[in-house]
Protein backbone atom coordinates (compact mmCIF):
# COMPACT_ATOMS: atom_id res chain seq x y z
CA UNK A 1 0.00 0.00 0.00
CA UNK A 2 2.35 2.74 1.21
CA UNK A 3 5.64 1.69 -0.33
CA UNK A 4 8.17 4.43 0.23
CA UNK A 5 8.94 7.06 2.83
CA UNK A 6 8.01 9.91 0.50
CA UNK A 7 4.49 8.51 0.45
CA UNK A 8 4.35 8.57 4.25
CA UNK A 9 5.58 12.14 4.11
CA UNK A 10 2.76 13.09 1.73
CA UNK A 11 0.29 11.45 4.08
CA UNK A 12 1.60 13.45 7.06
CA UNK A 13 1.46 16.72 5.13
CA UNK A 14 -2.08 15.92 4.07
CA UNK A 15 -3.01 15.34 7.73
CA UNK A 16 -1.66 18.80 8.55
CA UNK A 17 -3.57 20.39 5.68
CA UNK A 18 -6.75 18.68 6.83
CA UNK A 19 -6.15 20.05 10.33
CA UNK A 20 -6.32 23.54 8.83
CA UNK A 21 -2.61 24.30 9.22
CA UNK A 22 -1.37 27.68 7.94
CA UNK A 23 2.28 26.82 8.39
CA UNK A 24 3.81 23.36 8.01
CA UNK A 25 7.43 22.53 8.76
CA UNK A 26 8.87 19.47 7.03
CA UNK A 27 12.21 18.34 8.38
CA UNK A 28 14.36 15.55 6.97
CA UNK A 29 17.62 14.81 8.70
CA UNK A 30 20.17 12.07 8.25
CA UNK A 31 22.32 12.20 11.36
CA UNK A 32 24.42 9.54 13.06
CA UNK A 33 22.91 6.80 10.93
CA UNK A 34 19.33 7.77 11.69
CA UNK A 35 16.91 9.23 9.21
CA UNK A 36 14.45 11.50 10.94
CA UNK A 37 11.24 12.71 9.29
CA UNK A 38 9.37 15.44 11.15
CA UNK A 39 6.16 17.16 10.11
CA UNK A 40 5.10 19.92 12.44
CA UNK A 41 2.04 22.13 11.98
CA UNK A 42 -0.04 24.87 13.58
CA UNK A 43 -3.34 23.18 12.76
CA UNK A 44 -6.26 22.24 14.98
CA UNK A 45 -4.20 19.68 16.90
CA UNK A 46 -5.36 16.32 18.19
CA UNK A 47 -7.64 16.44 21.25
CA UNK A 48 -6.10 14.86 24.37
CA UNK A 49 -8.69 12.07 24.46
CA UNK A 50 -7.89 11.08 20.86
CA UNK A 51 -4.11 11.23 21.23
CA UNK A 52 -3.90 7.78 22.81
CA UNK A 53 -5.79 6.30 19.87
CA UNK A 54 -3.93 7.75 16.86
CA UNK A 55 -1.83 4.61 16.58
CA UNK A 56 -4.93 2.38 16.49
CA UNK A 57 -5.57 1.35 12.85
CA UNK A 58 -9.32 1.25 13.48
CA UNK A 59 -9.46 4.80 14.80
CA UNK A 60 -10.24 7.68 12.46
CA UNK A 61 -12.02 11.03 12.71
CA UNK A 62 -12.80 11.11 9.02
CA UNK A 63 -16.52 10.90 8.50
CA UNK A 64 -16.55 8.61 5.54
CA UNK A 65 -13.60 6.38 6.35
CA UNK A 66 -13.68 3.46 8.75
CA UNK A 67 -9.98 3.01 9.27
CA UNK A 68 -7.04 5.39 9.53
CA UNK A 69 -3.93 3.48 8.58
CA UNK A 70 -1.46 6.29 7.96
CA UNK A 71 0.11 6.76 11.40
CA UNK A 72 -0.02 3.14 12.63
CA UNK A 73 1.71 1.99 9.44
CA UNK A 74 4.36 4.67 9.75
CA UNK A 75 5.02 3.69 13.37
CA UNK A 76 5.23 0.01 12.48
CA UNK A 77 7.65 0.70 9.64
CA UNK A 78 9.81 2.92 11.84
CA UNK A 79 9.93 0.33 14.62
CA UNK A 80 10.82 -2.47 12.21
CA UNK A 81 14.02 -0.59 11.34
CA UNK A 82 14.94 -0.06 14.98
CA UNK A 83 13.56 3.47 15.00
CA UNK A 84 10.42 4.93 16.50
CA UNK A 85 7.54 7.28 15.89
CA UNK A 86 5.88 9.85 18.12
CA UNK A 87 2.92 12.20 17.86
CA UNK A 88 3.14 15.22 20.16
CA UNK A 89 0.86 18.23 20.64
CA UNK A 90 2.69 21.53 20.16
CA UNK A 91 2.62 24.42 22.59
CA UNK A 92 0.08 26.92 21.34
CA UNK A 93 -1.70 24.41 19.11
CA UNK A 94 -0.84 22.04 16.32
CA UNK A 95 0.84 18.68 16.12
CA UNK A 96 4.31 17.34 15.57
CA UNK A 97 4.86 13.88 14.12
CA UNK A 98 8.37 12.54 14.35
CA UNK A 99 9.50 9.27 12.79
CA UNK A 100 12.97 7.76 12.95
CA UNK A 101 14.42 5.03 10.80
CA UNK A 102 17.78 3.33 10.97
CA UNK A 103 19.19 4.36 7.58
CA UNK A 104 21.20 1.17 7.00
CA UNK A 105 18.56 -1.25 8.28
CA UNK A 106 17.59 -3.80 5.59
CA UNK A 107 13.87 -3.23 6.31
CA UNK A 108 13.99 0.51 5.78
CA UNK A 109 11.72 1.31 2.82
CA UNK A 110 13.31 3.33 0.02
CA UNK A 111 13.21 7.08 0.44
CA UNK A 112 11.22 7.46 -2.78
CA UNK A 113 11.02 10.70 -4.68
CA UNK A 114 10.73 13.31 -1.95
CA UNK A 115 11.01 16.19 -4.42
CA UNK A 116 8.24 15.01 -6.73
CA UNK A 117 6.08 14.36 -3.70
CA UNK A 118 6.60 17.64 -1.87
CA UNK A 119 6.61 20.11 -4.75
CA UNK A 120 3.04 19.39 -5.95
CA UNK A 121 1.79 19.66 -2.36
CA UNK A 122 3.65 22.93 -1.77
CA UNK A 123 2.40 24.35 -5.03
CA UNK A 124 -1.26 23.46 -4.71
CA UNK A 125 -1.98 24.52 -1.13
CA UNK A 126 -2.91 28.21 -1.36
CA UNK A 127 -2.73 30.11 1.91
CA UNK A 128 -0.44 27.54 3.51
CA UNK A 129 3.25 28.29 4.02
CA UNK A 130 5.84 25.52 4.16
CA UNK A 131 9.32 25.46 5.58
CA UNK A 132 11.43 22.56 4.34
CA UNK A 133 14.56 21.85 6.34
CA UNK A 134 17.05 19.26 5.12
CA UNK A 135 20.14 18.39 7.08
CA UNK A 136 22.89 15.92 7.79
CA UNK A 137 25.74 15.98 10.28
CA UNK A 138 27.36 18.95 8.54
CA UNK A 139 24.82 21.16 6.79
CA UNK A 140 21.28 22.44 7.16
CA UNK A 141 19.45 23.60 4.08
CA UNK A 142 16.23 25.62 4.14
CA UNK A 143 13.40 26.40 1.74
CA UNK A 144 10.65 28.75 2.79
CA UNK A 145 7.60 29.15 0.55
CA UNK A 146 6.97 32.52 2.20
CA UNK A 147 10.33 33.81 0.93
CA UNK A 148 9.56 32.39 -2.50
CA UNK A 149 6.08 33.93 -2.54
CA UNK A 150 7.37 37.34 -1.43
CA UNK A 151 9.53 37.43 -4.52
CA UNK A 152 6.79 36.16 -6.81
CA UNK A 153 4.05 38.66 -5.99
CA UNK A 154 0.82 37.44 -7.59
CA UNK A 155 2.47 34.66 -9.56
CA UNK A 156 1.25 31.39 -8.03
CA UNK A 157 3.54 28.58 -6.90
CA UNK A 158 1.90 26.26 -9.42
CA UNK A 159 3.13 28.38 -12.33
CA UNK A 160 5.15 25.97 -14.54
CA UNK A 161 8.39 27.94 -14.23
CA UNK A 162 8.00 28.16 -10.47
CA UNK A 163 7.34 24.41 -10.26
CA UNK A 164 10.52 23.82 -12.16
CA UNK A 165 12.42 26.20 -9.88
CA UNK A 166 11.05 24.48 -6.75
CA UNK A 167 11.97 21.03 -8.05
CA UNK A 168 15.51 22.03 -8.97
CA UNK A 169 16.05 23.90 -5.73
CA UNK A 170 14.73 21.10 -3.55
CA UNK A 171 16.79 18.54 -5.45
CA UNK A 172 19.93 20.61 -4.78
CA UNK A 173 18.99 20.66 -1.11
CA UNK A 174 18.50 16.89 -0.97
CA UNK A 175 21.92 16.41 -2.56
CA UNK A 176 23.55 18.98 -0.28
CA UNK A 177 22.20 17.19 2.80
CA UNK A 178 23.21 13.76 1.48
CA UNK A 179 19.62 12.57 1.37
CA UNK A 180 19.90 10.02 -1.39
CA UNK A 181 20.03 6.28 -1.68
CA UNK A 182 23.40 4.64 -2.08
CA UNK A 183 21.86 1.58 -3.69
Amino acid sequence: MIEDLAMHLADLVQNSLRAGARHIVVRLALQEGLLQIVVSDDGAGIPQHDLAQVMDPFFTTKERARIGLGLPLLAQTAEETGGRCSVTPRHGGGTEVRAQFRWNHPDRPPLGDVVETLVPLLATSPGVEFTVELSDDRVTWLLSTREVRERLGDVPLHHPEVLCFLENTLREGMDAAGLKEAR
Partner: protein
Amino acid sequence: MKLEELRKIRERAEAELRLRGGTSRVKIVVGMGTSGIAAGARQTLRALLDEVARRGLKDVIVTQTGEKGLAAQEPIVEIHEPTRATIYGEVDEAAARRIVAEHVVNGRPVTERVVEVREVKG
Protein backbone atom coordinates in the same frame (compact mmCIF):
# COMPACT_ATOMS: atom_id res chain seq x y z
CA MET B 1 18.43 28.66 -2.94
CA LYS B 2 18.84 31.00 -5.87
CA LEU B 3 16.09 33.46 -5.03
CA GLU B 4 17.35 35.85 -7.67
CA GLU B 5 15.94 33.52 -10.35
CA LEU B 6 12.46 34.15 -8.98
CA ARG B 7 12.58 37.82 -9.94
CA LYS B 8 13.01 36.89 -13.60
CA ILE B 9 10.27 34.27 -13.41
CA ARG B 10 7.99 36.90 -11.90
CA GLU B 11 8.66 39.42 -14.66
CA ARG B 12 7.93 36.86 -17.38
CA ALA B 13 4.84 35.47 -15.64
CA GLU B 14 3.34 38.90 -14.99
CA ALA B 15 3.76 39.91 -18.60
CA GLU B 16 2.02 36.68 -19.60
CA LEU B 17 -0.80 37.32 -17.12
CA ARG B 18 -1.43 40.82 -18.49
CA LEU B 19 -1.85 39.34 -21.97
CA ARG B 20 -4.71 37.00 -21.07
CA GLY B 21 -6.53 39.04 -18.40
CA GLY B 22 -6.01 36.62 -15.52
CA THR B 23 -9.20 34.53 -15.52
CA SER B 24 -9.30 30.74 -15.34
CA ARG B 25 -11.70 28.64 -17.37
CA VAL B 26 -11.11 25.24 -15.82
CA LYS B 27 -10.17 24.14 -12.31
CA ILE B 28 -8.71 20.65 -11.88
CA VAL B 29 -8.85 19.18 -8.37
CA VAL B 30 -7.00 16.01 -7.31
CA GLY B 31 -7.98 14.03 -4.20
CA MET B 32 -4.79 13.67 -2.16
CA GLY B 33 -5.95 11.83 0.97
CA THR B 34 -4.14 8.75 2.31
CA SER B 35 -5.98 6.36 0.01
CA GLY B 36 -5.50 8.69 -2.96
CA ILE B 37 -1.77 8.93 -2.31
CA ALA B 38 -1.50 5.16 -1.88
CA ALA B 39 -3.34 4.69 -5.17
CA GLY B 40 -0.90 6.96 -7.00
CA ALA B 41 -2.43 10.45 -6.69
CA ARG B 42 1.04 12.02 -6.48
CA GLN B 43 1.86 10.77 -9.98
CA THR B 44 -1.58 11.87 -11.18
CA LEU B 45 -1.14 15.40 -9.78
CA ARG B 46 2.32 15.63 -11.24
CA ALA B 47 1.15 14.42 -14.67
CA LEU B 48 -1.67 16.99 -14.66
CA LEU B 49 0.67 19.86 -13.74
CA ASP B 50 3.14 18.70 -16.37
CA GLU B 51 0.55 18.28 -19.12
CA VAL B 52 -1.00 21.69 -18.40
CA ALA B 53 2.46 23.29 -18.44
CA ARG B 54 3.60 21.44 -21.55
CA ARG B 55 0.53 22.54 -23.51
CA GLY B 56 0.86 26.08 -22.19
CA LEU B 57 -2.74 26.12 -20.89
CA LYS B 58 -2.83 29.50 -19.20
CA ASP B 59 -6.49 29.43 -18.17
CA VAL B 60 -6.36 26.16 -16.23
CA ILE B 61 -5.51 25.83 -12.55
CA VAL B 62 -4.57 22.60 -10.82
CA THR B 63 -5.17 22.18 -7.13
CA GLN B 64 -5.65 19.39 -4.56
CA THR B 65 -7.89 18.46 -1.70
CA GLY B 66 -8.05 15.78 1.01
CA GLU B 67 -10.09 12.58 1.10
CA LYS B 68 -12.97 12.40 -1.38
CA GLY B 69 -14.80 9.47 0.24
CA LEU B 70 -14.54 7.43 -2.94
CA ALA B 71 -11.64 5.30 -1.74
CA ALA B 72 -12.41 2.39 -4.08
CA GLN B 73 -11.98 4.60 -7.13
CA GLU B 74 -8.89 6.63 -6.22
CA PRO B 75 -7.11 8.53 -7.60
CA ILE B 76 -10.05 10.92 -8.03
CA VAL B 77 -9.84 13.96 -10.32
CA GLU B 78 -12.52 16.62 -10.66
CA ILE B 79 -12.79 18.94 -13.64
CA HIS B 80 -14.70 22.10 -12.74
CA GLU B 81 -16.03 24.17 -15.62
CA PRO B 82 -18.48 27.08 -15.49
CA THR B 83 -21.51 24.86 -16.21
CA ARG B 84 -20.51 21.41 -14.97
CA ALA B 85 -18.28 19.46 -12.65
CA THR B 86 -17.02 16.10 -13.91
CA ILE B 87 -15.72 13.57 -11.40
CA TYR B 88 -13.24 11.00 -12.72
CA GLY B 89 -12.14 7.82 -10.94
CA GLU B 90 -9.06 5.60 -11.22
CA VAL B 91 -7.09 8.34 -12.91
CA ASP B 92 -3.56 7.08 -13.38
CA GLU B 93 -0.83 9.08 -15.08
CA ALA B 94 -1.91 8.08 -18.61
CA ALA B 95 -5.58 8.82 -17.91
CA ALA B 96 -4.62 12.19 -16.41
CA ARG B 97 -2.84 13.18 -19.62
CA ARG B 98 -5.79 11.98 -21.72
CA ILE B 99 -8.23 13.99 -19.60
CA VAL B 100 -6.20 17.15 -20.19
CA ALA B 101 -5.94 16.50 -23.94
CA GLU B 102 -9.50 15.34 -24.60
CA HIS B 103 -11.62 17.00 -21.94
CA VAL B 104 -9.82 20.18 -20.91
CA VAL B 105 -8.51 21.08 -24.36
CA ASN B 106 -11.17 19.62 -26.67
CA GLY B 107 -14.20 19.61 -24.38
CA ARG B 108 -14.91 15.88 -24.81
CA PRO B 109 -15.06 13.99 -21.48
CA VAL B 110 -13.19 10.68 -21.28
CA THR B 111 -16.45 8.78 -20.66
CA GLU B 112 -15.10 5.42 -19.49
CA ARG B 113 -13.48 7.03 -16.45
CA VAL B 114 -16.36 9.35 -15.49
CA VAL B 115 -17.88 8.57 -12.09
CA GLU B 116 -20.35 11.45 -11.93
CA VAL B 117 -21.28 14.66 -13.73
CA ARG B 118 -22.90 17.53 -11.81
CA GLU B 119 -24.56 20.38 -13.62
CA VAL B 120 -23.70 23.76 -12.13
CA LYS B 121 -26.43 26.37 -12.22
CA GLY B 122 -25.13 29.80 -13.07
